[in-house]
């Protein structure tokens, strides 16, 4: 019996409860990763074209089925995750520092923010937005923080490389000048 590759792809993806790297699928299908990736992209495109209620997304280094965001209003009672409270400004600031500077230690975050941020880091760890990754090499090396797979999934990012350039967020020259004038003597 020959089974079309697309069909097997769909069946495997149906079992995924986390983003599935194309390489893993390739091993099962005995197909090179690049070919699997091309098939996945084509599949995702077709679902979009057919206006399906499911979406195939490449996020956090893998592929996974998602419900279409248009359908969100109907899905509330089928979704197990409870809505979580909005993050504080401090938490968002630390999250963006981790996203752009990962892997980064607690001490380095504190250095940037000018304040010990361990409480906020703990909150972000609990909310599964960041994760402790491997220790730096060497004894007594601090635990390093990176954003979690859950963060990337939620943001719809394949990796932190998909984040907009940090320069995008530098305050505009007007704001800089205003800040600066406040710092100048007798201004």
């Amino acid at each position, binding site marked *: 019996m020959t089974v079309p590759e697309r069909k097997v792809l769909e069946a495997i993806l149906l079992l995924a409860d986390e983003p599935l790297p194309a390489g893993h699928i390739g091993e099962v299908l005995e197909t090179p990763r690049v070919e699997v990736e091309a098939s996945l992209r084509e599949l995702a495109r077709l679902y979009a074209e057919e206006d399906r209620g499911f979406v195939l997304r490449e996020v956090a280094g893998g592929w996974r089925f998602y419900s279409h965001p248009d359908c969100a209003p109907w899905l509330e009672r089928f979704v197990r995750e409870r809505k979580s409270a909005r993050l504080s400004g401090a938490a968002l600031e630390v999250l963006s520092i981790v996203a752009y500077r990962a892997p980064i230690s607690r001490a380095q975050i504190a250095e940037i923010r000018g304040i010990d941020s361990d409480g906020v880091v*703990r909150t972000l760890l609990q909310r599964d937005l960041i994760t402790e990754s491997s220790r730096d090499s060497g004894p007594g090396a601090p635990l390093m923080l990176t954003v979690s797979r859950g963060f990337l999934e939620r943001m719809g990012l394949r990796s932190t490389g998909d984040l907009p350039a940090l320069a995008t967020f*530098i305050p505009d*020259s007007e704001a800089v000048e205003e800040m600066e004038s406040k710092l100048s003597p007798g201004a």
Partner: protein
Amino acid sequence: MPHEVKLEVFEGPIDLLLNLIGRRRVDIYDVPLAAITDEYMGVLARMETTDLETSTGFLVVAATLLELKSSRLLPARETDEVDTALLEGRDLLLARLLECATYREAGTWIAAGLEIGAAWHGRTAGLEPHLVDLAPDLLAGTSPEDLARAAAGALAPGPPAPELDGFFELPATVSVREAILEVASELGRRGRATLEELCGARLTPIDVVARFLALLELFKAGAVDLDQKERFGAIEAAWTGEADVSAALDAAEDYSLGRGG
């Protein structure tokens, strides 16, 4: 419509300064910057030893600023060494403030992204019943001791997580003037104490902010000397005995830690 994101949580000196500047509450030059700028000069001095990534990010912002500023500096100005040092200090401070402002802005973008992402739900059904039996044993390599360690980690009482979210929405109950009086009497008695000691058990962020500002005012008035051996080390205050607390009290009226105002 852009999502409204609350970004008004004060957490410490950098945040506080940034916010105060943004709200035009305080002319930053009136705050004695020497104690703070020393800290930033310290960063620059240690640049070679800090890790490259951290320092380059910081330097990029600093360089941008210096370039921005150079046009204003080009016309010859009377500058002596002290002025130059002050200027550099301010640039470093500004660079720090800008760096924080940049991450803060990135944070609002992330907040919007998380909000949008909440409408996407991943499939969670996982393996179908007939396939579950084929799956490798999840417990392979897990010992009862591993479980005990995990349980100990989860069940042991950690340090109480500070709940900072939105605390600044509350009307401030601590005034800087009161803090000055308290800090002055405490320092008068002890001679010297760290900021942490001065805050005692009441380590709410707003208490710390009030005492930090109180120390700055007392420093400006010449009532205390401040010392910080290393960044994020304890800020140590020493009573000079040349106290002019009333001047500090007068100045403190300019600060309002409450909402609005």
